[in-house]
Each structure stands twice: as C-alpha cells, then as structure tokens.
C-alpha cells in the first residue's frame, strides 16, 4: 500500500465517519420534522431556515445542562455506559460498501472503510455489543427503572438477534460469501435484488432491525409510560445526548445494512448503460469516478428512504406489550426464518431463485382463507 492509496483510504474513512455523524445529527431534525408533518404540524422551523440549525441548538442545550451523577451510582460504569453505546454505534459503518471504487493515478480504491471477508459477521458482532452500553449504563445508575430498562434491552436484543441472523443466513446461502461487497455484487441486476428473492427474509430482517435499534414499536427499554425513561432515566447533559445520538447512528447503520443486503447497495437499474455512457464520453477514469458517485448517491437515497421509514413507523405504530414482543420474536419470527432458510436451501438445490415466494404465497392464501372463514365482526352502534 503506497502513500497515495493510504491518503485516499484515510480520506474515505474520515468522510464516512463524518457523514455518519452529520446524518445522525440531521436525523434528529428529520425525526422532529417528520413527526410534525405526520401530526399536521410543521416541526422545528425557528432555528435557521426550515429549522436547519436545530441540531446545533439541541447540542448547545445538551452541553450546557448540568452533568449529574447520582451519588449512589457506580461512577465509572455510569460514564462508560454512554461511551460504549456511541462507540459500538460508530464502529459498524466501517465495513459497509458505500460505492464501487475510485480510480486515481492507476489505482482502484473501493469506497469502503475496510474490506474484510466476514463483513456481515463484523456488523452483526458490533451490533450485538451495542446492548452493553445500555446494560452497563442502566445498571450503574442504581435505579430500579433503569435496571428494568437495561434488562428489557438485553433480552430483546438477544431474542431478535437470532431471527436476524437466520434471515441473513438465507442471503449468505444465496450469495455464498460473508463479504458485504460480494453480497452487493451478487445483486447487480434489478430483479436479483435480495428483496425480490428473499421477501420474507427482508420483512424479518426489517422487524429485527427495528428491535435492535430499540425503535418504536419495540422501544420498550425506554418506555416512558412504564419505566420513566428506561435505561437513561438518571442521565442528563451530553451523556444523555450520547445515548440519543447512538440511537440515530444505529438507525443510519441499519438503514445502510438493509439497503446493502436487500436493495442492491449502490446498484440501480441500467447501471451498466450509465457507466458505459459516462466512460465513453468522459474517459475511463473520470467517467468511472462519476459513475461511482452516482452509485453512492443512489445508495444514500435508499438509506434516507429507510431512515424515513423508521420514523414513519415510529409515528404510526403504538408500542408492543412485553409478552407480545417476546411471542413475536420467539414464536413467529424464529420459526419463520428457519422455514425461510430451509425453503431457500431447496430453492438452491433445484435452482429456483424465487423459492421463498412460496412461503409468502402460502401465508397470504392462509390469511385470506382464515379471514374469509371468520365470522363477520358486526359493528353495532351503541344505543343510549
């Protein structure tokens, strides 16, 4: 690795890091805007044009609040908790391929933090560590509500990690690689995007991503109606800010992972045509770099859509009850994902690419049949 490559690589890493932070920052703004618009309000619009300076104002507020540590708390663990949360959140964007490659002075450098051949396992491992920030913080607060929030977070994350892993396994079987870049490369044409070959896996993964990010409808760890503030009840100032920020970074990372795994990453329809036209008209190097840039923009459009989807769901659905959460995870998602793995295996054996549609079709048919057979629910107007 020579110096130019090293410099370009470090620029890419720094840019990815910065972009992650900026997107997380503006997600807080977007969340409030989306919430406002869905509730027929306008959302923040006072700080700067369209309220665009709102994240800065929020950060300023966070920094100037009193940084309080409860006297009975375990001081070091109390501080380590939010640090762990934000550390694990920031680590996972390192292996996501954000674009094809940059050509510069005869070098071809992939737009990705690091390319490792177990990329998805790395993401998975880092995500599974994310719960430590919550657990350590919740326990160190020495508060029963915080502890309950931490315990809920732990059990929820472990439960949904299994279904998530099994959903990924179906993809790994189809791609034959753990590297995120080869998974993206396997979805080159539009109809081979994994969302079309693995519709059930996609739904399971999406649900589990919501649960892993502790987002509504699975935000039981910070369920304010039951647990005051959950694991961050005792936190204030920027420590609280770190927890909230970590949540938005996690949202960005899971949106990126969903787009990479199921929506073809930086691929878009007619990509080769665009690439050929650009390299033909602008030369091999400039054209290729421009095509890479378009691919990156497409990926970010997908990511933004999923971030919006996260918010959309948050402001639509109410929270699950705890037993419903566990039942959904263990009794529905895990058996379904195992079934998905088995059916995908059969599909691979007999060379049917769209085998897992079978489960979807069967489920839809069963649902229609059962709702047709069920007695009509009579809506009687109440009499006075």
């Amino acid at each position, binding site marked *: 690795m020579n110096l130019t490559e090293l410099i370009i690589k470090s620029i890419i890493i720094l840019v990815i890091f910065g972009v992650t932070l900026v997107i997380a920052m503006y997600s807080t703004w977007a969340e409030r805007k989306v919430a406002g618009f*869905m*509730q027929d309000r306008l959302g923040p619009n006072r700080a700067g044009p369209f309220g665009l300076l709102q994240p800065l104002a929020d950060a300023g507020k966070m920094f100037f609040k009193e940084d309080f540590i409860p006297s009975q708390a375990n001081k070091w663990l109390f501080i380590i908790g939010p640090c762990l949360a934000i550390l694990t959140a920031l680590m996972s964007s390192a292996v996501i391929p954000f674009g094809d490659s940059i050509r510069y002075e005869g070098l071809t450098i992939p737009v990705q933090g690091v390319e490792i051949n177990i990329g998805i396992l790395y993401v998975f491992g880092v995500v599974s560590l994310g719960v430590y920030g919550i657990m350590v913080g919740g326990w160190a607060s020495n508060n029963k509500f915080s502890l309950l929030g931490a315990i809920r977070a732990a059990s929820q994350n472990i439960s949904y990690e299994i279904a998530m892993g099994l959903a990924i396994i179906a993809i790994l079987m189809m791609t034959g690689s753990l590297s995120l870049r080869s998974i993206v490369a396997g979805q080159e044409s539009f109809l081979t995007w994994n969302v079309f070959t693995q519709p059930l896996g996609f*739904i399971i993964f999406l649900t589990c991503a919501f649960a892993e990010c502790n987002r509504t409808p699975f935000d039981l760890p910070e369920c304010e109606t039951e647990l005051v503030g959950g694991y961050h009840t005792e936190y204030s100032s920027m420590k609280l800010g770190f927890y909230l920020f970590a949540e938005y970074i996690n949202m960005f990372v899971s949106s990126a992972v969903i787009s990479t795994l199921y929506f073809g990453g930086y691929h878009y329809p007619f990509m080769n045509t665009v690439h050929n036209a650009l390299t033909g008209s602008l030369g091999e190097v400039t054209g290729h770099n421009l095509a890479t840039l378009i691919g990156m923009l497409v990926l970010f459009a997908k990511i933004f859509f999923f971030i919006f989807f996260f918010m*959309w769901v948050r402001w*639509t659905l109410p929270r699950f009850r705890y037993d419903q959460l566990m039942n959904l995870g263990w009794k529905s998602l895990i058996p379904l994902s195992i079934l998905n793995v088995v059916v995908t295996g059969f599909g691979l054996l007999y060379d049917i690419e769209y085998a897992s549609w079978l489960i979807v079709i069967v*489920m839809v048919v069963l*649902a229609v049949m059962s709702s047709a057979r069920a007695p009509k*629910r009579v809506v*009687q107007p*109440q009499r006075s």
Partner: protein
Amino acid sequence: MQLTNRSKQVSNKEMTLAEKMYLPAIAQGLAITIKHFFQKKPTIQYPEVKRYLGPIFRGHHVLKRDEEGRERCTACGLCSLACPAEAISMVAAERKKGEENLYREEKYAAVYEINMLRCIFCGLCEEACPKQAVYLRHDRFVPVFTERDQVIYGKDRLVEQLDDRYVRTGSEVRATPTEPTLSRSAT
C-alpha cells in the same frame, strides 16, 4: 349514549391469521400517516403572520380623541369604578384657557394609569364610559413585559396617536348585547 357514529363495540374475539400477522393493519396505519404527511398544515406562523381575532376582541386600551383631535376623557372615574380588578386610576384637572384644542370637556384626566398586571381585559371600562373615551383595541395586544416598572401604562402609551387612529371595523357587531349599536361606533 352515542356521541359520534365512529364508536365501535370492543370485541374480544380470537384474531384471524391476517390480523395476527399485523402486516395488513400496519400497512393501513402507515397509509393514514403518510396521507397526513402530505396534507396542508393549518399552522399560522405566529409572530410573522397574525390571525384576525374578530371585531370584538379586547386588547390594548386606547384613550380616544374626537374628530378634531381633542381627548374625549373627562376624568369622571366611572371606568375605574366599573373596573373589577381595580386597575385604573386617574387624577382630574381643569382645562386652562387655550387648551380647548387639546381637551373636549372642561375637565380632563391629567394622569390616567392602567396597571396591566391587574387588568383582566373584561371591557367593563369601555362599557362604563359615558364619553366613548376608553376602548379596548381589537387589533393590538398589550406587549409582553419583563420588568415591573413596565406594567403601569400612563397617558403617553394610552392616548390615541393622531397618525395611528383606531377605527373599530365591523362596528355593526355589538360589543355586548345590552348596548345600543350606534352610540358605540368609534369613529
């Protein structure tokens, strides 16, 4: 008792498979929220855009002048008598020679003060005034104050400026049902 026709009987029936899958209901809910996302927002951007509060809104007090620019108030004290919050106080004085273009009556209010912390904007002073001198403007608020010495409004802030005369629009609306309409039109 039926309040709306949207009430539903709650039933504890076993859910069908489609309902157990949650997805159709979730899609329904998402459709509702996205519809609201693109709807026109009813918000009025307050400090920039002010909403018309109607012709009978009771806002900032004003001591009217007549058509020739003379103060109408004769310092009879009926307003301060009528005031339930005892917010109005005044000192009467006799009109000197040569002041006929300033004051309409022979007696006038040398000092006329309203304590805005006490005032409840009931409009009884306006009703009590026999000279149609005190009005509560329908188009202007008493501004926010931050210090205690800002709350007592003297004549400097109450008397109508000649370049900023107050005209109550929609004067056909009676301020209170008991009043004769014509006598109250502030022109």
